[in-house]
């Protein structure tokens, strides 16, 4: 009995060393060498400063930006999760109706239109970095108007940021909102630069 106990104890300690430290540290080592970008969270840098992660949603407000999906956790990466409201929840229906009403009040051109589901539903993680192409195109008019850009130019920007299914097989077409907004920022900077040029 005591031998069984001793073996159990020693094997547990050995497992700690091998699977608790050895295995993850091996992966850390390989990863930091082979894929340093992904290993550290796919961080996006502008002028050397971290502005976010390509994989984590941020909150954008105001008409000058594209907006991500609503988030049940206010896009706080320390508290990932969905709303967990059930499919027959009256509260859920009320949330969706209120989000729709706010959007239509702000952007009258949306009145009477079918909104893509992901525009007013919250995601499973609350950190979904993407929106659907339909959602992005529907936002293009308000961004174009607020920024004083031609609509065609903004729609072209959206089109350039659509990422299709991986290898054409896996998953859905989508637009990553942070990259899209960074692209928007670059267009604006370029336009301003062109105006200032003699």
């Amino acid at each position: 009995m005591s031998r069984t106990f001793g073996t159990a104890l020693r094997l547990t300690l050995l497992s700690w060393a091998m699977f608790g430290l050895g295995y993850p540290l091996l992966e850390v080592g390989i990863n930091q060498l082979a894929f340093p970008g992904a290993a550290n969270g796919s961080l996006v840098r502008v002028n050397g400063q971290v502005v976010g992660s390509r994989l984590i949603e941020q909150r954008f407000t105001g008409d000058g930006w594209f907006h991500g999906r609503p988030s049940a956790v206010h896009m706080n990466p320390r508290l990932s999760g969905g709303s967990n409201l059930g499919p027959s929840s009256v509260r859920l229906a009320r949330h969706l109706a209120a989000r729709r009403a706010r959007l239509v009040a702000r952007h009258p051109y949306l009145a009477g239109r079918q909104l893509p589901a992901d525009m007013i539903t919250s995601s499973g993680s609350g950190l979904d970095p993407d929106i659907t192409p339909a959602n992005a195109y529907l936002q293009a008019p308000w961004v174009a108007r607020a920024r004083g850009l031609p609509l065609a130019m903004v729609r072209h920007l959206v089109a350039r940021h659509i990422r299709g299914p991986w290898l054409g097989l896996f998953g859905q077409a989508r637009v990553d909102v942070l990259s899209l907004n960074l692209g928007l920022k670059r267009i604006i900077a370029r336009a301003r630069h062109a105006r200032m040029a003699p």
Partner: protein
Amino acid sequence: MTSPVETLIAVLMAAILFGMPLGAYMARIYGGETFWATRALRPIEHFFYRLGGIHPEDEMDWKRYAIALLFFNLIGTLFLYGLLLWQHKLPLNPEHFAAVTHALAFNTAASFVTNTNWQAYGGESTMSYLSQMLGLAVQNFLSAATGIVIVLAIIRGIVRAKSRHLGNFWVDMTRTVLYVLLPLSVILGLVLLEQGAPQTLGAYVEAHLIAPFVSGKAYVTHQTIALGPVASQEAIKQLGNNGGGFFNANSAHPFESPTAFTNYLQMVAMILIPIALVFMFGYMTKDRRQSTMILSAMLVLFVPLALASMHYDLAANPLFHGLGLSQAHTAANAGGGDMVGVEDRFGAGSSALFGSVATATSTGAANSAYDSFMPLSGLVNLFFMQLGETAFGGVGTGLATMLAFVIFAVFLGGLMIGRTPEYLGKKIESFEIKMASLSILVMPLLVLIGTAVATAFAAGRAGTFNPGAHGFSEILYAFTSPSNNNGSAFGGLSADTTFYNVATGLCMLIGRYWSYLPLLALGGSLAAKQRLPASAGTLGAHGPLFVGLVVGVILLIGALNFFPALGLGPIAEQMTHVHALAASK
């Protein structure tokens, strides 16, 4: 974009295609053969034996095997419990998380040691990196290996004749973690990393927002991004059918599953070892028809239910009629369907499929909010677990439960044709049937009594988040999942209370050990018997008819036990939906 049905086929094909050689490989490993793999890793294996004081040639009978297993799991539980209580005094805690409460530490320790990985906490706000690596990830390996060696001992019982021994527990554990789980995890971890899962010990990162905003009275200029050694943990979480997420949102979190390809790979990883074990069983019994029979039974159960779940989750939610919300099935709309709690990169169909895979195996991972699934998709999740985790089941334990059902079916078939029931030349007598029944019936008792108690007392009812029938489903799910060592949840339930921590913790422990120790005894009893040659009157335990018998037994027991409870939960909710649809027209 592939349709969800095509994804289902692709997942099954890949799992079977890789599972077959993996099963053959595992049969060689456990048979003690010398070949390329053992030549490469034997020094480490022997290092384990030397340091552990293990004598590999020392064979154990079922009682010693069970005692070694219990001791090992007990020490694992105590270590993990202690680690969680002391995490604030230990290194690798860059966010300075406090000690975990006693009730939660008990629940988490029971959860990870029994391969359940029910999580009453959010990883990124509770667990230090050290707790994740040394505590949770280590048990991901060990609890999965424990499941595999349980079925290994039972298979040896079937294969051996006139023997008291079922193998050496320590040797089987060492070989499982070293030759099977570790290499697969390293490979999968690297693919996950290439796709974007982080793997770092650095602290959480502050990002400077390009568009700061005002929230309430606060001017928000930063976002704190939670990181950690995610990829390594994610790989073993899926391969070992553990399912405990690094983050609260589990595989819905973009760091745990960054792309639809990782989503696909995670589904394959969940089914891979359960299927490989079915093939291993065929190799070890030298009867490939057994693999075909068991795999067919699993597929007959899995495919229709998974298709139903996808169908209902892709159907429009009638509650949203009149909200001007497009649930159309177009590529520009993430494939359409019920998008509440679903990530855009996966879409509703793939999320329902992931839910089916995670509950049909005992993984319990989640790539979407199961609480927000359409009522009948939620029902499929529940029902997969209530079938006793047989198709495909947990790593090892799934096949073990399946074998208990097979023995049951052999017994029933024997009664029908008036012959002494035999399985692979072994007589099935009253002891075997008693042990199989004990193993099969403890789970429904835990689920139904647990749900009844929670519904009867205020402490149980207080946890529900959604009202009405859906709230009842939340409670039913909270007892179904731990009792079956699954670990997925209807996440709305407030599970981190003393009541739920203790109740679900007990369900996990009883559900694990009461289900599988009788099966070890069954293995021991079968090993002692002599092998009878098959005669003209022997019921052949293969072929479509026998598959039908096995599936019938599983469905009958599952349905008879659980339909009344399902009627009060998801079925009642679906009825109100149908009503809402009629009213909206």
